[in-house]
């Protein structure tokens, strides 16, 4: 399919012989924003991991940005992921030994792109983190840390942004703000956004939705 960033076919993943994810066919076009819904244990995180290329499905084909992930060798896959996929974890996972700016520069270094401290600074300023650039993650509030994690996910201008439960631990106002930021940043780099959540508050904001569940 032309312009598709994600194409999945006959996807099936099992842990210890037990199916946790089944998806016959799913494709996501360039720039679309999708919500992956389903209760806990329905395979949302598994799907994100497969999309990120850090988990190889038991069977089926996964194509991201025109690349068949199963055809790539390990080192290539790592580099491909670094350049094309940005991930915002539910628990953020900022590197605690590095400053906020250091986290962004690390993302640039590991993706093998040119390290551009100026662009990183500009990105942080745009997210209201100009004063926190040289702070360690422990010194940030949760909201600030989440913005830093979003900045790290988009610093390499990825084509696909994955977010795992970005709003589930937030109150209504903060959830709306976080969502707004993600959509903004995805639009800014014309990236496809896939959010996995069980948070019903944000459903009406998305026209594309897919619901996972046993037997789907």
């Amino acid at each position, binding site marked *: 399919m032309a312009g598709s960033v994600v194409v999945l076919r006959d996807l099936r993943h099992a842990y210890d012989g037990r199916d946790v994810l089944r998806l016959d066919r799913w494709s996501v076009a360039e720039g679309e924003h999708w919500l992956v819904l389903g209760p806990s244990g329905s395979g949302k995180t598994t799907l994100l991991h497969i999309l*990120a290329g850090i988990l190889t499905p038991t069977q089926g084909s996964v194509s991201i940005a025109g690349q068949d992930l199963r055809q790539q060798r390990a080192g290539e896959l790592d580099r491909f992921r670094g350049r094309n996929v940005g991930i915002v974890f539910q628990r953020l996972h900022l*590197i605690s*030994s590095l400053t906020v700016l250091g986290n962004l520069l690390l993302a640039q*270094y*590991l993706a093998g792109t040119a390290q551009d401290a100026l662009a990183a600074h500009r990105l942080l300023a745009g997210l209201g983190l100009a004063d926190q650039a040289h702070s360690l993650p422990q010194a940030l509030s949760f909201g600030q840390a989440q913005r830093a994690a979003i900045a790290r996910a988009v610093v390499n201008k990825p084509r696909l942004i994955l977010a795992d439960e970005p709003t589930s631990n937030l109150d209504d106002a903060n959830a709306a703000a976080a969502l707004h930021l993600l959509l903004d940043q995805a639009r800014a780099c014309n990236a496809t956004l896939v959010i996995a959540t069980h948070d019903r508050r944000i459903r009406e904001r998305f026209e594309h939705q897919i619901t996972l569940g046993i037997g789907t």
Partner: protein
Amino acid sequence: MNLLRLSLAYIHARALNAALNVLLLALGVATIVVLLLFTQQLEHRLERDSQGIDLVVGAKGSPLQLILSSVYHVDIPTGNIPLADAEKLKANPLIKASVPLALGDNYQGFRIVGTNHDYVSLYQGAISEGRLWEKSYEAVLGSDVTAHAHLRVGDTFVGSHGLVEGGEKHEHSPYTVVGLLAPSGSVLDRLVLTSVESVWEIHGQGREEHDEDEDRADPNKPRHVQPQELTALLIQYASPMAAAILPRQINAQSALQAASPAFESARLLSLVGVGVQTVQAFAAILILCAGLSVFIALYNALRERSYDLAVMRTLGATRGKLLAAILIEGLILASLGVALGLLLGHALTEVLGNWLHAAQRVTITGWTVVPGELVLVVAALLVGLLSALLPAALAYRTDIARVLARR
């Protein structure tokens, strides 16, 4: 950002722990450096002082004591030998050259040695001021003696009886300084040289002054040279064959003993060596403990850091990069430990050397490098690398999806 800065950031985040590991390694390295520098310089010193001396002939007793007293001038002599026996020996065709030594007095703790000019040539000693002795009661000072006693050419001094400070002074027969020796890095530096006859004459006059029997009653007091006696004869062989024949020939005589400086100093070093090896083994254990400590630190950090490692993989890090990052961290800790250890070891040797120089007049310096240190550096770095290897391998094998799915 690069792997080095990343590793440094992790070390910085656990600075106290890192400092402890570095210190542990540094102590092990420093201990071995001190031992290396000491044994190396001691060996060099022993070699330098016994060069050109194939055999020492003196009175019967311990061969090691004979060598220590007449070659290194640290122990008391075994006794004296009649001049007639020495003269008879000198005629032996197996002997190329011989130097007589007559001991018995000291000046401020520096031994006064009655000998001939060949003794100075033996160590390539050079006169820096004045001339060598010609007549009785003329003396030439080694460089340490000059520095310590502040004597100049033309000054006079009196020797004291015995080989250590505090003996009865020979007030009636003062020596005149006629020459000063340049530093030679050998035993000459801490000796006062004069003619054999001077030593004889002083003790010839002294016969009425002190009771011979009283001297003999004290076994710790050496029997000083009497006229027509020598303390020892330093011998150079005429041919290698002499080594096989001469010592046996001399030892067969009832009054004389022959000892080889090479053999006795090797024996001495092997005795000292047991102690050195013991300390070296302890230092090696210390280094291994440091390696173990680095290993435990990295291994524990790995558990704390498993999320970090998984996140770095999602950011595009290959397995190889994570492996390298952990190895670099181990190597940085090891390098810091080695660098600090080398610095500490050399400084400690210099301090101990200065203290020893004051106490024992043995010159040992910390500002020199011995080949063994290179082996030590490589070994210590290897310990650091090895201790990081298992944590690095575990980081390499981390299943990132499983770590990230952990709640």
